[in-house]
């Protein structure tokens, strides 16, 4: 611990007077969202296991041909899966935890968006500069990623272009789409706002889109974790928990 703090201190000596790498609110909302994603993922998988078949349109059931089926066992004996066993039914608590986590994520997201707009966090830190979007700069970023180059220490103080685009897509596209398609499966919500589901082509279409959006979010999280590992897992994680390395210096 002392050794790693010491090396971080020397690496960041130039930035000692800078504010924390990540603002407190960004750090708090990041970890709450990470926890929510984990519980939503686990419970979402549990829910899917009771009917691992997907359809398009309003309706879908075992008397209909699915769009596709997942090659997994099911938690209901009626579902033909090709497996000789039925998984235990965990749907009850999974559903309750899924929706409770979704609520926490929504409140966290609102807090984060309000903060991000009020402090221009999105403009300052996430929207790519036009320079970075120029063909040459963008190509250089992509090539760097394809070579799995370990980023320079100086790059830890700003997000690169691909990172910015990925974060913006998650915050403003994928998570809102997951919430929308989730609400579109609710018979009560769509009784008040039918266009939430009719615009998607039906309740089963909403379920299928919800699945693919979740899959994209999972891909994002896996890539995110790989990138952090390449950049230095312990150091980057510490920055996201404590804010910045110079805060550790103050404590030490």
């Amino acid at each position: 611990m002392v050794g790693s703090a010491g090396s971080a201190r020397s690496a960041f000596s130039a930035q000692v007077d800078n504010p924390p790498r990540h603002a407190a609110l960004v750090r708090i909302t990041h970890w709450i969202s990470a926890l929510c994603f984990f519980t939503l993922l686990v419970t979402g998988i549990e829910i899917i296991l009771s009917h691992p078949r997907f359809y398009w349109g309003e309706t879908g059931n075992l008397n209909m041909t699915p769009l596709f089926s997942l090659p997994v066992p099911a938690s209901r004996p009626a579902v033909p899966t090709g497996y000789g066993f039925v998984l235990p039914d965990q749907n009850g608590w999974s559903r309750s935890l899924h929706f409770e986590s979704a609520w926490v994520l929504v409140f966290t997201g609102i807090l984060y968006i309000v903060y991000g707009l009020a402090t221009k966090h999105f403009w300052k830190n996430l929207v790519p500069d036009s320079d970075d979007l120029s063909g040459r700069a963008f190509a250089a970023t992509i090539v760097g990623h394809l070579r799995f180059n370990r980023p320079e220490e100086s790059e830890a103080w700003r997000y690169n272009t691909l990172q910015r685009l990925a974060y913006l897509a998650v915050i403003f596209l994928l998570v809102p789409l997951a919430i929308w398609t989730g609400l579109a499966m609710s018979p009560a919500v769509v009784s008040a706002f039918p266009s939430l589901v009719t615009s998607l082509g039906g309740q089963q279409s909403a379920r299928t889109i919800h699945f693919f959006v979740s899959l994209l979010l999972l891909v994002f999280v896996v890539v995110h974790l790989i990138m952090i590992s390449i950049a230095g897992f312990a150091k980057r994680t510490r920055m996201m928990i404590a804010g910045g390395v110079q805060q550790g210096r103050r404590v030490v």
Partner: protein
Amino acid sequence: MNKISRRKWLAGGIAVTGASGLAVAGKLASRYGLIPPDHSGMYGAGHALTYASQRLLTANSFAREFPRDQISKAPFVTGRPLQDDAFKQLQASGFSAWRLAVDGMVAHPGSFSLSDLKSYPLNGQITHLACEEGWSFIAEWFGVRLSRILQESGIQPDAKYVVYTSLESGLSDSIDMADALHPQTLITYGMNGRDLPVAHGGPIRLRLPRQLGYKSMKYLTRITVVDSLKGFVPGDYSWYAGI
């Protein structure tokens, strides 16, 4: 004022505002009947948020109804029809002895036979039944409004919930008055132009198209009007299933 102390003041202010806001919100929610019976425990907050927000949003909403050509060709159902002897005896006589008992906070407790139920105005709906497992189908349902039967029985104005019971042993559930009195809440005895099939809960099934299928209880035998759900035991699934 330096930066750290300003931040502390801000955080403290947010915490105090948040805590008192929550307390006030809880009081208000309770007064307006926005707290579900399964509001305690680990998932209670989620249940309460869903119920309260959807009750506010769906005060005057109607479940979507579909054109006839969207009715599912082969409506699906899970589970086997009821197998016990009492049910089979009733079935053998065409359910002529089936009774739907209505009791609790009503002026005239009593029971309704199938032909009693059919003597009231027929209501039909082509609605979507979604199971919490993920599958769904659309069917045309026929029956009498639950609100009509409650009126006939002289429901008392301070009633808060309707508890309903299935002939299937041990199955019982409840709904609030917003759903019990909703025009689309039917005691159904017909489906897709025929008597309600036994597999789908015939002879009578409660139909609640603004909630998931598990609230639409099959083999309905008893309706009890109450003003509280004292002794409510939470099930595996959330009590409110409008999600």
